[in-house]
């Protein structure tokens, strides 16, 4: 659903592959070819060992709820409070901020450590956001 005022990411050369991935229905992470460190957000070198030899790969899209707030006020443009702002820990290791869909935005429903899986929300023709929903397994 279009949310015209919601903040829209603007990709840079270093992050374009990530946004190309979400548009294609893939959550893409990067792994260092030298030390195997998996990291996020995107950059063309390893923040652990400084190697520039890194690879992009499709992540499993699975993770768990690491922490969150349920924002009541002030609400960001394009959001109807209360809404959860979550941090998801991916099975591959990195964490990312996201929203949790298909789940009541309440402390009772949003249990820390609950299993999550990625879903994709198109904001417009160029930008698709990765969000997460409770895992079905």
């Amino acid at each position, binding site marked *: 659903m279009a949310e015209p005022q919601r903040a829209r990411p*603007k990709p840079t050369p270093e992050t374009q592959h990530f946004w190309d991935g979400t548009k294609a229905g893939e959550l893409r992470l990067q792994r260092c070819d030298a030390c195997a460190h998996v990291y996020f957000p995107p950059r063309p070198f390893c923040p652990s060992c400084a190697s520039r030899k890194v690879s992009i790969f499709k992540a499993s899209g699975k993770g768990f709820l690491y922490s969150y707030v349920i924002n009541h006020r002030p609400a960001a443009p394009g959001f109807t409070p209360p809404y959860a702002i979550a941090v998801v820990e991916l099975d591959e290791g990195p964490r990312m901020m996201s929203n949790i869909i298909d789940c009541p935005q309440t402390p009772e429903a949003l249990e820390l450590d609950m299993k999550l899986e990625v879903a994709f929300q198109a904001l417009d023709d160029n930008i698709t956001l990765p969000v997460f929903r409770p895992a079905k397994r």
Partner: protein
Amino acid sequence: MRSNQIAVVGAAETTELGVIPNASQLQLHADAALNAIADAGLKLSDIDGFATAVETPQQVCHYLGIKPTWVDGTSVGGCSFMLHVRHAAAAIEAGLCKTVLITHAESGKSMIGKQPRSTPADSLNGQFEAPYGVYGPPSMFPIPVLRFMKTYGITHEQLASVAVVQREWAAKNPRAMMKDPITVADVLNSRMIAYPFRLLQCCLVTDGGGALILTSADRARDFPRKPVYIMGTGESVETPMVSQMETFNSSRAFKTAGPLAFKEAGIAHGDVDHLMIYDAFAHLPLFGLGDLGFMPYEETGQFIADGNTRPGAKLPLNTNGGGLSYMHSGMYGMYALQESVRQMRGIAPAQVPNAKISVCHGVGGMFAASGTIVFTNER
């Protein structure tokens, strides 16, 4: 850096604090600076080093008519002024300048002459946090809290008690914005802002400023005020994105800056008579007590709930009322420093009797940066 070679010889806040609709942010810098100059018995022409944050050094120096030979524009959020103190002490010791003025001011409430904060859409924050509905510090700073609570068994009531105890301190301070007593129930029944935090667990939004003047300890004897010596310092940064902290069970920046300052000062936790931990939100004193090594994280909530940081108790904490009840213009670190200096001078409204060592710990951004200063009034 060697302990006690540099001293604070001038310290003052703006003439007014709170809602100041008749002054721009730049003028608030000047008001604080002029008050600090008067406090130190100096002239503006005596200042040869200058540091500030958000506003540029060139802006404030030109407005005040200062011609510095050393400047520092380190701007890492609300603890920038702790970093300025550290950098100024090093600069004076290195002979780069003799007398440093550090100013902070923010028209945080009235927004006069203040640039609104913005997050560019192509920044990493703009790409990977802003689209998920973060909107100002209340929606971001508490994001680690639920994980911290679960890991250490911290309760909502314990986190509410932080605000209750600080209100007790604020009640003793005529300049505090909020002085009426509150209870844990009042906190837990106040308006929800960003679960788990309610209104009374979030800092105030006010106007104001403050300024410090530092010089060498040898010169400090000639000044009208009792010198307050810089005993130890520490600083660090972690990440501008709260989602990318190494862990929500502690702050890496806190754990770097705090112990550095303790080590440099050569003190143990039992030596600390007075403690300031920047409290933009109610969880910060718990992170601070744990990250600075005062006690295991599991004990931090109960320690405050049991009254150990209240007036008259063993570890006086945030004795001006803190960002929750004293004032918070947006970059509160300067006000924490001012309270440490008042306590070391022996002139604080809620003075801790015979306090000789004060630890002042600051945060910048959402755990993005940290600075710690250990002060003493004995050399």
